[in-house]
């Protein structure tokens, strides 16, 4: 189980930069998301781009990690005001990195960039919501210093 002492290092793609998503990036963003989730949801991504893309609002952020014209990953989030009785805070509701580009710090760069955007928008807390069995993404956010929130999500089957 624990024999491999060091994780195989992956070099970050040369010239990686984090920037707001552009319309021309969407096909690659959709490909990354559908590779991972198995669902293409093209309309959903165009709608998200319309609402969050290209720096339309300081409170809504849709960023991509790009190197040499190739999109390596993306992150989406927004500042929400006074929901659930809490002070305004940043919410990350989507993050993905190409599977073959992982372990190179791209997710960390994306999260740092969106957190800088949230700070710029005047908030000092970031939250996210992850399925309990999604160990990969849970571990990533934990590795970035995120802890259990004071907010507990609840749900009920309406069937």
């Amino acid at each position, binding site marked *: *189980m*624990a*024999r*491999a*002492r*060091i*994780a195989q290092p992956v070099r970050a793609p040369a010239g990686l930069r984090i920037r707001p998503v552009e319309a021309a990036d969407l096909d690659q963003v959709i490909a990354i998301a559908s590779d991972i989730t198995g669902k293409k949801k093209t309309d959903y991504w165009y709608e998200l781009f319309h609402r969050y893309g290209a720096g339309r609002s300081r409170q809504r952020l849709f960023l991509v990690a790009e190197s040499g014209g190739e999109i390596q990953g993306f992150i989406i989030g927004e500042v929400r005001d006074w929901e659930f009785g809490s002070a305004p805070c940043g919410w990350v509701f989507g993050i993905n990195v190409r599977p073959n580009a992982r372990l190179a710090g791209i997710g960390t760069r994306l999260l740092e960039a969106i957190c800088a955007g949230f700070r710029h928008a005047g908030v000092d807390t970031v939250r996210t919501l992850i399925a*309990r*069995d999604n*160990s990969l993404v*849970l*571990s990533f956010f*934990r*590795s970035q*210093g995120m802890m*259990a929130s004071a907010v507990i999500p609840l749900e009920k089957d309406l069937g």
Partner: protein
Amino acid sequence: MRLQISTSLALYSVLEFAANPERAISAADIAAKYEVSTHHLAKVLRELVRAGILESTRGVGGGYRFAGNTRRLTLLDIIELFEDLGDGAGRSRQPGASTDVGSALGVVLTEIDEIAKATFRSVTVSTMLRLIERQRDTAAQIPHKRTRRG
């Protein structure tokens, strides 16, 4: 949540060894730091060696050394070597478990167990080492803040 003593000793030990991966540390050194019996700790360390998390080194300066991958090894991996965090099966054998009240209570307790397991599964040794570092930094800043206020 309360962990068994062996589990806590295993977690303390793994984090000590992982923080100094190139250094062999003796069981006596760890036992002295955490004020526990060397005999009890040695049994825990042997189990960690069997699991491939530690390796023992012989000779002068011998002891144990970390042999795992800090970015892959989770708290749950270590905990499950020493105790069963449960799938509720043990609880269903307790007196009253089959009553309406016992069954409803079981639902809540299972929910708590699942959250605890998901948390332990999501925290790697590497994440813990960073958390320890942050705690240390925070502790170091408190006297500084007090001095500034004073």
